[in-house]
């Protein structure tokens, strides 16, 4: 038994030179990995261009994306990105009550850019003649386009402006009793205009989204 142990070959210990060479090789491999992969992927530092070539730079951006700016411009016209329509500004809100005496009328319109959207709800507590219509910017009265003239006491819906201009309603009280019309809208309009029986056109203030109460429930 002891004779067998004595006959077994004894493994040779690596020399100091071999150890040093192996250590240097490992260090070089680690530095190479750091420069090729770790720095580009973790910190976006790409001294050798390997991060860009291997697509590793995107990994470094994943943690802190640069925000995409909103569409540019002052006109509230939508920029479509797939199923999303983005606007260069916030939408507005508005709510009005019109008391129409016997045979009186009022016209109320919002300025929307082409393809801009408005949601609306209006109702009357009596019969009214109504005409939802629009006038293109800079055109005369002959260019007026009617969207809905059917007799209604109530209407809720969404409207997409077919052209840049003022779009809204004409409400007329056809009878001898007073009628009240209430309208509420929200949309990407910039201004509102009220037209009266005295042939006046008055600009009306519309509110920004800060006017919407914040819910705490």
């Amino acid at each position: 038994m002891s004779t067998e142990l004595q006959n077994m070959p004894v493994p040779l210990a690596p020399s100091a030179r071999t150890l040093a060479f192996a250590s240097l090789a490992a260090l070089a491999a680690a530095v190479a990995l750091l420069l090729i992969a770790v720095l580009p992927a973790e910190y976006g530092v790409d001294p050798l261009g390997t991060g860009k070539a291997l697509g590793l730079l995107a990994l470094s951006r994943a943690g802190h994306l640069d925000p995409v700016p909103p569409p540019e411009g002052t006109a509230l016209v939508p920029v479509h990105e797939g199923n999303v329509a983005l606007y260069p500004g916030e939408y507005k809100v508005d709510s009005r009550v019109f008391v129409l005496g016997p045979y009186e009328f009022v016209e109320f319109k919002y300025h929307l850019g082409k393809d801009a959207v408005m949601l609306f709800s209006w109702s009357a507590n009596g019969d009214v003649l109504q005409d939802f219509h629009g006038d293109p910017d800079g055109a005369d009265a002959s260019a007026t386009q009617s969207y809905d003239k059917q007799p209604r006491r109530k209407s809720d819906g969404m409207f997409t402006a077919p052209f840049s201009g003022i779009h809204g309603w004409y409400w007329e009280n056809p009878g001898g009793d007073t009628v009240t019309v209430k309208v509420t809208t929200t949309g990407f309009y910039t201004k509102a205009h009220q037209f009266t029986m005295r042939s006046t056109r008055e600009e009306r203030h519309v509110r920004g989204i800060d006017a919407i109460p914040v819910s705490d429930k």
Partner: protein
Amino acid sequence: MRKREFILGLVVIMAAIGGRMLAHEHFRVIGTITKLDKKQFEVKDKTGKLWTVYLDKKTKVSRDKQPVAVTTLKIGQSVVVDAYGDDESDLLALDIRIVPPIAATPK
């Protein structure tokens, strides 16, 4: 050359006249007839304001959606007048509806 200038001038004049006609605004006056003659009538609205409106051959008068003669108009009738004009003092009646007496609106 003179003919061309003449035509150009004529076009400018017609455009100016046409523009003025198109510039007329629409007014609605609702109230009671207080004065009346063949050429014009006066309407007092609910605020007490008096409106003078001119009549011409194209003025249409109706009652219960049926056309009636201009001579049907009488002092004291309630009317809804659609008129055109440059301003409140220069109104021409296009359409006059005789309506049932309008109850006074409480102020």
